[in-house]
């Protein structure tokens, strides 16, 4: 629920203040922002090339050639790391944000939400529906935001317990490893398909589109590039798989820190009827959690470390979130709202603990001190 101490006038003032901040940041966009995204895309491409070259270069130290196992492992791991990093940057700071329309203002068809396809199993078109539309509009509204547990997990006491949730710890691990494939299936809405609530032709079309994208991704990483290595096919396949899994585990962790940590709020459907702009903003702030960290953390999380600011201004270029964050925090303090921001380890630790706890049918929260930091 929206905190009862907020009056209509407060909500209106919050709405006006945040609208003004957003308008100011949009007006400030310019050459420096364009230079930032171009530099980032260039660095990402070089990392991707470097990573793939590194993986192939490592083969030179196999026993048949230079014969040095330690060098083989070092070069191989460097290659895997660079490729994983390239995928992380592409998916988060570049892909996720471009697909949000954050860079559409540049009127550049090469960097535009209508044309960008990302290095991810999920087709950008489907992601725009499940993420940009459903999740960002109905954030943390039970029964509307399908990102609450992704239809598989119990992430809040307010979801009714079911024996299915006993598998939650197992799902957690499987999902972390194969996260991009889970996301590729997200728009299909499997629970609705199983209950027969979904038009079959529509479901088939979505499955075909997701299958085609996942297939092309797999063809590239698990067939074509490994084939180039000839007899060392399996080494390159394993390396590419490792890079994909590293990317998956990291993105899984970051995304689960966005809306599932201890202290985050969930809302009933009744809240959205006639919801004002100000109330929408408040719901976004109470339903999102930040990760406290430095510039590297912001870059590697695609600025989802500023999840609160991202949910307030989803189509504002992500490099501006760090600038508006202090103002958003001050606004929260002024109106007595929780601004949930903690270091990664604490945020992710609280998610894991909560998900384990909710595996079991307890509806009660354990007594804890106030969770809102700062």
């Amino acid at each position: 629920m929206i905190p009862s101490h907020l009056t209509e006038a407060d909500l209106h003032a919050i709405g006006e203040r945040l609208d003004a901040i957003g308008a100011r940041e949009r007006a400030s966009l310019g050459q420096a922002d364009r230079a930032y995204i171009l530099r980032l895309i260039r660095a990402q491409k070089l990392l991707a090339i470097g990573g793939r070259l590194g993986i192939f270069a490592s083969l030179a130290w196999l026993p048949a050639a230079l014969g040095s196992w330690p060098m083989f492992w070092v070069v191989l791991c460097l290659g895997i790391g660079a490729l994983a990093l390239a995928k992380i940057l592409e998916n988060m700071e570049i892909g996720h944000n471009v697909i949000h329309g954050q860079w559409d203002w540049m009127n550049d068809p090469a960097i535009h939400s209508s044309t960008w396809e990302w290095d991810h199993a999920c087709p950008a078109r489907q992601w725009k529906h499940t993420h940009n539309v459903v999740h960002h509009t109905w954030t943390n509204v039970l029964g509307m935001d399908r990102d609450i547990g992704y239809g598989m997990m119990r992430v809040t006491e307010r979801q009714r317990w079911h024996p299915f949730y006993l598998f939650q710890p197992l799902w957690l691990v499987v999902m972390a490893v194969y996260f991009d494939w889970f996301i590729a299936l997200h728009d299909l809405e499997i629970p609705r398909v199983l209950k027969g609530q979904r038009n079959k032709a529509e479901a088939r079309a979505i499955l075909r589109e997701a299958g085609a994208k996942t297939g092309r991704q797999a063809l590239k990483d698990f067939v074509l590039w490994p084939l180039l290595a000839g007899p060392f096919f399996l080494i390159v396949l394993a390396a590419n798989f490792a890079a994909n899994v590293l990317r998956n585990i990291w993105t899984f962790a970051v995304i689960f820190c966005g809306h599932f940590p201890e202290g985050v709020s969930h809302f009933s459907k009744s809240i959205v009827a006639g919801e004002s702009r100000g109330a929408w903003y408040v719901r976004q702030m109470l339903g999102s959690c930040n990760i406290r960290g430095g510039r590297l953390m912001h870059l590697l999380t695609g600025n989802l470390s500023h999840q609160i600011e991202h949910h307030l201004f989803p189509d504002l270029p992500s490099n501006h979130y760090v600038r508006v964050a202090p103002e958003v925090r001050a606004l929260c303090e002024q109106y007595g709202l929780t601004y949930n921001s903690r270091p990664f380890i604490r945020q992710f630790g609280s998610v894991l603990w909560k998900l384990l706890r909710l595996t079991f049918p307890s509806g009660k929260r354990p007594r804890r001190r106030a969770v809102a930091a700062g």
Partner: protein
Amino acid sequence: MNSAAALPKPAWPQRLARAFAFPRTTRDYTSLVAPQLTKADRAGARFTARVIDATTEATGTRSLTLRPGRGWRGHRAGQFVTLYVNIDGVWRPRCYSISSDDRVKKTIRLTVHAASDAGVSRYLVDTLAAGAWVQISPAAGDFVLNDIAAPRLFLSAGSGVTPIMGMLASGAADSGEICHLHYARHRDDVIFADALRAMAAARPGYHYCEQLTGDGAPHLDRHTLDRLCPDWRDRETWLCGPERMLGTAEALWTEAGVRDRLHIERFSLPMVDDSAVGGGEVEFVASGRSAVARPGAALLQVAEQAGLNPAYGCRMGICHSCDCQLRSGAVRDLRTGKLTQTPGVLIQPCVNAAVGPVSLDL
């Protein structure tokens, strides 16, 4: 992406290479070392081009010679391109007529006149330097010469001479009879003055006549036409100039019953009155429907009420599911009050309202 679907399927080596680079293209990677090979977009609607020369023609007027990159298919004399230039991080589009010979395929020349102190044209005239990268659309427009074997009349005013210059440079004056009336304020304002006078001296069939309104010459009227080109009713006429001149000519030619011999190119868009409260006729080009928008009504809603079923998402301007192209007219963002009136840009119809007549690609 209908235009992308229409592109020919590449040969298998390219498709294989692309499968390695998926979801990027191989060119996204080759562009790291050779940006000139990069198409500005995958649909082929924009080409990267390099400014190889920039020459001042007259006061506030400059010719830019561009070398378009791969995929450029040339133009026909009289056509225009949409030029995109990056200013403050944004690719800003403006249409300019091509003033160079259409038999030359490797380069094109655009001639830009800056009428005001700000905006894209001013930037092109004052700031853009040779060596810069820009983007251009394929050549477009049907303001081109026809095959009718009649004498021709060219009418131009100010920078309206650019497409006419393109026709003359492409050999229009090599044969046949041409009368060219060009209007300008002062002698110094005449664009291509030297080239036109030289052509008049060298080509017996080409008669060039300057009308300097700043020195007392009247604007286009029947009297001038009857005096300088008495058989104007019998000629195929090409006209490019400001809106008022076009109106005068249309009236004269219609009155004479020869409107079909008059070919017009518009180069100025009527600017929107900023104080307009909004609302207006909305044309949905792709579906061929239209509707009248109330002031302050979101265009998405207007489209739905007109029976259209466009894609949409959040309906509050955050998800960009409903983005569509503004063909013409002006729209105002209902959240920020920002006015958008650049043809060809994408707008969010769920949070934009019409300001006067609007045409959308829906």
